[in-house]
């Protein structure tokens, strides 16, 4: 069950993240190149974007069915960032659908949809990261007595915001790497490679910032990560794939770079997830919320497990077929 939860979160970061990233890339693309970027992006994510965001629903459902107390507490103390993330998801999803299904492609309305789409693509992963950061920041106070200490400082702190920015950078980075493979012509490929390089640098900088912010908040992130072998291994694998990535990116090995990019993000999540296991939410007063002790009754967990297994048998093959049907053939590169 915990494996499913982790899987759903990782897949949401990889696929949903890349999806957000596409909007972020658009945001940071010069006005001149935007139409091209938009076209590539639309063709790449059009058929699959709805499916990418289902992973979030799966993760939420696992959380509230399997670990209801943790879900309830997160929803209470992180109400505000969750709300902003939801508004972001809403604005983004509808703007993307509306800009392709508006029968009249008017210039002003299209510009409006574009604006909503790119800014919400930035806001949503930012707050997603803030929520993830807050879960491990030890700033959530289960006994808070004032509005500020309970509902605001739980997420508005250097560490959470740094994780939020790091998530944005990672999303942009993933998207740039994926888009290299979907680009239509040499020119676009070059542009996306350049973007991917920039995003790599930005992601590394923000990654460092996370550690700095952790220092500010008194979170011993470094000691945690390097304190157990699995996390160290994960970090090493991530570092190696980063180097490989940098070396291979210009050589048109798009399959390998996609894999290494996905591997990096997975390893970062693994390192963080493993070092905190079995805790899912770390709180101020130390009664951390553990996945092992705060789960639903056994019958619920086993029924949910069966439901997810059967569901995966239905979902995964068709999802795979969807991706393979709509990904561009290798001959283009």
């Amino acid at each position: 069950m915990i494996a499913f939860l982790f899987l759903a979160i990782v897949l949401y970061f990889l696929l949903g993240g890349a999806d957000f990233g596409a909007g972020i890339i658009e945001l940071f693309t010069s006005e001149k190149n935007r139409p091209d970027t938009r076209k590539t992006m639309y063709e790449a994510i059009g058929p699959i974007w709805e499916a990418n965001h289902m992973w979030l629903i799966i993760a939420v459902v696992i959380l509230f069915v399997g670990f209801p107390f943790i879900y309830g507490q997160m929803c209470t103390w992180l109400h505000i960032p969750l709300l902003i993330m939801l508004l972001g998801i809403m604005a983004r999803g509808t703007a993307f659908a509306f800009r392709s299904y508006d029968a009249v492609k008017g210039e002003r309305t299209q510009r409006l949809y574009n604006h909503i789409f790119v800014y919400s693509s930035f806001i949503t992963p930012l707050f997603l990261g803030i929520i993830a950061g807050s879960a491990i920041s030890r700033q959530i106070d289960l006994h808070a007595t004032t509005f500020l200490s309970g509902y605001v400082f739980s997420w508005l702190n250097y560490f959470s915001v740094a994780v939020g920015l790091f998530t944005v950078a990672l999303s942009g980075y993933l998207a740039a790497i994926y888009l290299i493979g979907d680009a239509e012509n040499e020119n676009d490929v070059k542009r996306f490679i350049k973007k991917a390089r920039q995003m790599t640098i930005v992601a590394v900088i923000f990654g460092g910032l996370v550690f700095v912010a952790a220092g500010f908040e008194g979170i011993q992130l470094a000691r945690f990560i390097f304190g157990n072998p699995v996390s160290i291994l994960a970090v090493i694998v991530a570092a190696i794939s980063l180097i490989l990535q940098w070396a291979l990116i210009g050589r048109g090995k798009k399959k390998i770079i996609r894999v290494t990019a996905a591997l990096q993000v997975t390893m970062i999540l693994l390192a963080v997830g493993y070092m905190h296991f079995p805790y899912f939410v770390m709180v101020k007063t130390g009664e951390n919320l553990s996945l092992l002790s705060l789960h639903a009754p056994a019958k619920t967990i086993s029924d949910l497990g069966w439901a997810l297994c059967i569901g995966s048998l239905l979902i995964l093959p068709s999802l795979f077929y969807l991706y393979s049907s709509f990904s561009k053939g290798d001959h283009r590169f």
Partner: protein
Amino acid sequence: MNDFLAARSQMAISLGFHIIYSCIGMVMPFFMAVSHYKWIKTGDLVYKNITRAWSKGVAIFFATGAVSGTILSFELGLLWPKFMEQAGPIFGMPFSLEGVAFFIEAIALGFFLYGWDKFNKWFHWFTCLVIGVSGIVSGILVVSANSWMNNPSGFNFLNGHYLNVDPIKAMFNGSWFSEALHMSLAAFSATGFAVAGVHALMIAKRKNVVFHTKAFKIAIVFGAIAAILQPFSGDISAKNVYKTQPAKLGAMEAYYHTQAHAPLVIGGLPDTAAKKVNYGIEIPGLLSFLVHDNFSEPVNGLDKIPRQNQPPVMVTHIAFELMIAIGSAMMFLGLMYFFAIWKKRSWLSKKWFLNLFILATPFGFIAVEAGWTVTEVGRQPWIIYGIMRTSNAVTPMPGIHYTFYLFTAVYFTLTIAAIFLLSRQIKMVPLLYDTKQ
């Protein structure tokens, strides 16, 4: 506005809009599947164009339905964290299966929308059918979760603890079938009449008459059949509500005093303080008949329920009457349509006949909202009937009225945008589909 009322209003607004988006998103794929089938069988391009035009509407409503559904899955926790902490493991099973069904729907939608002329046409048709079937399955599952709140089962409740939790039993509680049947038929009749109404308007305006006549026919056949079947499902529901939630039935019928030969009140304004209904028409014995199938057996009224456990009678009764009135009108229109096909084909192109259906465009959705109000307001003051009070489930976070205003604004904007896009799609029909392809 206090936080509790704000939280309830925010939930009501969110569900009230989501219910419309999702009904359209789950029923229209069936219309598409029929017209797509006709295109493959007859080769008539008009049917292909109808399918394409409808699929754009579905895409718009699927997107709004998907985001509003995502928001709801969080709102359950954001607004009712204590309810979710306790109820999540018991009634969450249909939600996890719904996640799966919805996922499949999203995959099938990807294939269908972007797969024109790309796949074998029967495979393409099949993906359209999958969208519809998984949509209906999602709907049934979500309604099953709601029916558990009305008729909680699958656990023993002892000293505030939930023991022997069985999520499968909770899912198949005693009310899931009647509620799911009623909601599914409601979705078909509401969407059928709404879509048919829009096409009737276009026929009346003499625009693309061939296109709109064919589209009208497919939509109204679905809508009319569902509207004609709905009273039977309503009867099953009412009997079940009396058995499981007598307080809700009492409020629906504004029925205060337990008596034999129980009368049915039609219309009227309930006065709870005086325990009587003003200006209503009473039909003696009819309520006994509806509940027990005979005209004399006593029916328990609101006097059997302690005052603090009674739902608001005024709102529940008026919403119920509205639903019945509109449902009857739709059933009548449905019968009229079939009569016209059978005996009076000339009616089909008459202005007055089209006007009736144009007038009925919003009927189904008004009835859906009214029926939803009956089931939700009629359950109050409970969030889990007889177990947990709604006021004990609400989030401790202050300032919920701000988020209520925010969400109200967001949903209105979203709906206006969706209507604006649809009207643009409809206006573009001549341009997009008139040229010889």
